[in-house]
C-alpha cells in the first residue's frame, strides 16, 4: 500500500523537491482514498488533522454565509494540495471542503507528519518548501480576485476605479 502511495507522490510535481527517502517517509503517513461527489471532507472550525494531495477530481473550498448558504471561494483540481491548517496552531479548518466531482487523492495523517517534521528538521524544511509556493500562489490569486479585474466600472462597489473607458 505504501508503495502505491509512494508512486502517487512521485507522479505529482507537488512533492518533487523532496528527496526519495523523504517522499517514502511521507508515504508512510498517506492513504489512497476515493471521495464521492458531494461528500464533505471537513467543516469550517473542525480539527485539521488531515491534508490531501488531489490526483483526480475537484474539491471546493467553501464557507457558510448566513442567508446565502455555502459559498464556494475556490476549487482545487488534480496536482494540488488540499489543507494547510494542520501546519500551525490552532489546527482548525478555516474553510469547509466538499468534493464537486468524484475525487481520488492521497490523504495524510497530519499529526504524524507534524511529528515527523519536528523530529527531522530537514524533512520539515522540505515540506515547508513544498507548501510555501502553494500558499504564496493562492494568496496572490486571492489578491488579484479582490481587484475584481473583470468588472465593468458600474459593477465596482468602491469609488476609486480610475478613468472609465469610452
Amino acid at each position: 500500500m505504501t508503495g502505491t502511495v509512494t508512486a502517487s507522490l512521485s507522479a505529482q510535481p507537488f512533492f518533487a523537491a523532496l528527496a526519495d527517502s523523504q517522499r517514502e517517509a511521507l508515504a508512510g503517513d498517506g492513504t489512497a482514498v476515493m471521495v464521492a461527489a458531494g461528500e464533505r471532507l471537513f467543516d469550517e472550525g473542525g480539527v485539521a488533522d488531515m491534508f490531501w494531495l488531489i490526483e483526480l477530481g475537484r474539491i471546493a473550498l467553501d464557507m457558510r454565509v448566513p442567508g446565502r448558504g455555502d459559498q464556494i471561494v475556490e476549487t482545487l483540481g488534480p496536482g494540488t494540495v488540499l489543507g494547510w491548517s494542520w501546519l500551525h496552531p490552532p489546527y482548525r479548518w478555516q474553510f469547509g471542503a466538499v468534493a464537486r466531482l468524484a475525487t481520488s487523492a492521497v490523504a495524510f495523517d497530519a499529526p504524524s507528519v507534524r511529528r515527523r517534521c519536528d523530529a527531522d528538521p530537514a524533512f520539515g524544511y522540505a515540506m515547508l518548501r513544498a507548501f510555501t509556493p502553494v500558499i504564496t500562489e493562492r494568496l496572490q490569486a486571492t489578491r488579484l480576485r479582490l481587484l475584481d479585474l473583470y468588472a465593468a466600472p458600474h459593477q465596482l462597489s468602491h469609488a476609486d476605479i480610475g478613468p472609465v473607458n469610452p
Partner: protein
Amino acid sequence: MTGQRTAQRTAQPTAPPAPAGPAAETPAVPRFYRVASRREDTADTVTLELTEPAQPVPAFAPGQFAMLTAFGVGEVPISVSGLGDSGGGRARRLEHTLRAVGAVTRALHAAPPGSLIGVRGPFGTGWDVASAAGRDIVIVAGGIGLAPLRPVVLSALADRSRYGRIVLLAGARTPGDLLYAGELERWSRDGVEVAVTVDRADSAWSGEVGLVTALIEPAGLAPGNSVAFVCGPDIMMRFTADALAARGLPASRIRVSLERNMRCGAGWCGHCQLGPLLVCRDGPVVSYDRAAPLMRVREL
C-alpha cells in the same frame, strides 16, 4: 449653433455615396456598416454583426481592431471578434463584441439591427495564428478578453490539421459574465480543450472557481512546443504570461493584446503611446518579451 449641434448629435445618418479612388482607402474616413444582427451575450455585452457589401474596408486579421463610430457620440477601438465574409480581401461582414462601459460603447451596445455604425480599419498587429503551425495553441482569456481571441479559435479550427492541441483557458467574473457559452460547448465538442473558471460562483455553477492562472497547471501544457495567445486586463495578462514563462514557455512565444487609448488608429496622434510603442500601430498584439518591461512601468 447649439441647436444644430444637438440635431447632429441625435440624427441617424444615412449612408452617403462612397468616395472613389485612393481617398476610399484613407484610414481616417469611416465606412458606413449596417448592423445586420445583434446578439446579447451577457447582461452588458453584445455581439454586433456588421455588413457593408458595397464599399467594405480591407479584411481584418484575428487580433486587429476597428475604430467604431456611434454617430453623434464618439468613436472607440474594438477588436474584431469574428471575421465573417472577407472574400477578395475585403471585410463585407464583421463581428464585434463590445461591453457597455461608457457613452460610446453604451450607444453601440444599444444599436438596433438596421442602424448604421462607422467603421475604420483594420488597424494594428494581429495574433499571427499561422505562425503557430505545427505547435500547440494555448489561449488564455480573462473576461471580455475572450472576444479578440475568438477569431484565433475559429481560424485554428478552420485549419485544424495545421496545429497540435488547441487549449482554451477562460476566466470570467461570474457564470453570467461568461462570453460565448454556447460556442464554448461547441468548440469543446470540436476538440478544443476548454477549461473555464469564475471568480464568483452561483449555486448553479458546477465548474472551477478561482483565478484563470490556476487552470494552467492542470492543462498539462507542452511549453517547448506551444504558442500562447493571452488577452484580458493588463494585470491578468502579466500574471498569466509569467505563469506560462515559469513553466518554460519562451516569452517570445507568448502574445498579449495591449489596450491603450487608441484614437487615430494609424500611429499619427500618439495618444496610445506605450514607451517606444504606438499601440495602435505596433500593437495591440505584441510578444511578451517586448511587452513585459513596459507593463511594469507605473507611469506608462
